């Protein structure tokens, strides 16, 4: 077996490859559905229907996609600069903690000021938090994959302490949760009688903004250049250090905004299960999108469809909803494979 780099690849294939990969992933996971004794076609049909089949289903899916867009953008921006930020989960909770701290009565502002204030402070906290491992990476050469990952556990333990200790809401009948944020901090609902909130629009706006920045601004160019070749960027006299710091602030900030958005848009109060792994799913979202900011919106939708659809599918036919996690993991691996095949061809000899 020999691998040969391809000279070029038709644009259609570059877009089509991830789609084919997703189809392949679903085909592989059909094996598990067969194991559960159901027909794969009807199962996937139920999944689609459960995620997109009604206004309610659709709004649920878009609500679920919202934090994934934020964390997906966070991973995409960082990975472009080869800053391997695996700490989206921790930054998510840093944002949620900041919003809880400021939003549960400490500050009283009208909603139109309160909401931007919470998002900005949350994003700032998340960005600054990511600066710790970034600083350890640039100054002390400590691998950021490991440090950001380990810090996730540290943050979760801090949240654990907060919701069981100083922040425990006495009105919560003993449940480990913080007090709810004030009414003016709650994000308005977009579609009446649904859970879809303003955070979704904000997530879309962020995706557009990040795309514009990466594509058309000097900062975006520098981020891409540092990721493509650290040596060449240094040689070209680019502000490499400043670029990495900016990337970290942006990436950590975006992941933290997911936390603020979930807190103020969905739940209203801080708990330990505010995120079912949005930080980690964000990495899959970014990879499925080939690190493209607008692609992130689509791949976040895809992951959201899988999760929301799997819930209703598992109710309709008796199959564990862990099928959603398996499908996500297999999709990630298949997309890696597909992206490889757009760059190389395999010659069998």
């Amino acid at each position, binding site marked *: 077996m020999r691998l040969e780099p391809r000279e070029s690849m038709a644009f259609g294939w570059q877009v089509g490859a991830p789609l084919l990969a997703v189809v392949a992933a679903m085909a592989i996971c059909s094996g598990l559905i067969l194991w559960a004794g159901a027909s794969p076609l009807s199962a996937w049909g139920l999944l689609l229907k459960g995620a997109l089949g009604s206004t309610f289903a659709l709004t649920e899916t878009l609500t679920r996609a919202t934090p994934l867009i934020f964390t997906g953008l966070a991973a995409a921006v960082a990975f472009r600069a080869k800053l391997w930020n695996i700490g989206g989960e921790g930054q998510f909770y840093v944002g949620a903690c900041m919003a809880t701290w400021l939003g549960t009565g400490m500050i009283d502002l009208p909603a139109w000021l309160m909401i931007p204030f919470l998002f900005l402070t949350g994003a700032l906290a998340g960005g600054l938090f990511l600066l710790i491992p970034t600083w350890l990476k640039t100054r002390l050469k400590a691998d950021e*994959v490991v440090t950001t990952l380990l810090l996730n556990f540290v943050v979760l333990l801090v949240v*654990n302490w907060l919701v069981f200790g100083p922040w425990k809401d006495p009105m919560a009948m003993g449940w480990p949760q913080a007090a709810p944020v004030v009414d003016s901090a709650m994000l308005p609902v977009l579609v009446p009688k649904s859970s879809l909130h303003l955070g979704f629009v904000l997530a879309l706006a962020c995706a557009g903004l990040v795309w514009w920045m990466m594509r058309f601004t000097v900062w975006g160019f520098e981020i891409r250049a540092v990721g493509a070749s650290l040596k060449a960027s240094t040689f070209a006299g680019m502000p490499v250090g400043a670029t990495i710091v900016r990337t970290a602030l942006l990436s950590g900030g975006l992941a933290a905004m997911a936390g603020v958005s979930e807190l103020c848009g969905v739940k209203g109060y801080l708990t330990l299960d505010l995120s079912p792994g949005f930080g*980690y799913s964000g990495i899959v979202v970014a990879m499925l999108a080939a690190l493209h900011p607008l692609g992130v919106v689509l791949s976040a939708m895809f992951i959201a469809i899988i999760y929301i659809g799997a819930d209703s599918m598992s109710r309709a036919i008796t199959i564990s909803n862990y*099928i959603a996690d398996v499908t996500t993991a297999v999709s990630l691996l298949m997309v890696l494979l597909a992206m490889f095949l757009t760059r190389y061809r395999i010659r069998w000899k």
Partner: protein
Amino acid sequence: MDILSLVFETGFWLATVRMATPLIFGTMGELICERAGVLNLGIEGIMAAGCMSGWTWVYLGGTLWGGVLFAACVGAGLGLLHAVFTVHLGLSQHVTGLGITMLGASLSSFAFRMILPQVTTPPKIVPFAPLDIPVLSTLPFIGPVLFSQTALTLTAFILVAVTAYVLLRTPLGLALRMVGENPLAAEAQGLSVLGLRTGAVMAGSALMAVGGAFLTLAAFDAFYIGMVNGRGWICIALVVFSSWKPGKALLGTLLFAAFDAIQMRVQQQSISAIPYQFYLMLPYLCSILALIAMSRKAAYPKALLVPFRKGER
């Protein structure tokens, strides 16, 4: 609480050695992969798969050692997948590893739900019993701490010696290290870079899975979803801490297990002024500190994270 008196307490060291066991298997597995030039971030998922598959084997009527072997095979299988992606196709070791972790963890949870659809309390199995090796276990202090553990713990200690010997004293070990340091030179010597790396990742992953199986087959007697609980990530930090040396890695695992054991005791006494969550943070924070301390020496295998392709340089 008096930490000093703990040091002289047999029970504390017994717990430390027991808690170190899965970390020893995981750290040795990761160390072998990285020495051959492949970072294996799949460890957390591979350990989960080992947990689940070892338990299932025994639950369905197999023997305990059969469960260990089955877990090792499942681990090697996931390792092969990682190797195909990273070694043969040269894809990002970071991203592939995370994919393997997600796959291993989610498949274990899915399979567990398939095998046991409607249970609230997980059924128990009869786990490995502690050995009582004649003569040795009657030695003062060392006896109960080392020789009254389960057979898997003893295996872990033997494994460290074997890994150190094979890696540092045999031609196979030399070849593995060469592949991790300078694959071009290894190829010039007529060694198969891809083959050696694939073998190392599969063997290492098998060990990780055995570490997971220890949790269900010796430490606890049931499988819980999420029971690996970050142990795999700690192993990755421990490998850096050990500067890729088996002996130091053993020391590191014991150190971290000791932290864990202290933390458990503090939690039980619950009279401490410091909330127990902060003790739980210690292993993670110490891992980061260890990483900083060790990274300055930068003893990384030179070709770690660098894919190797024939005819490309």
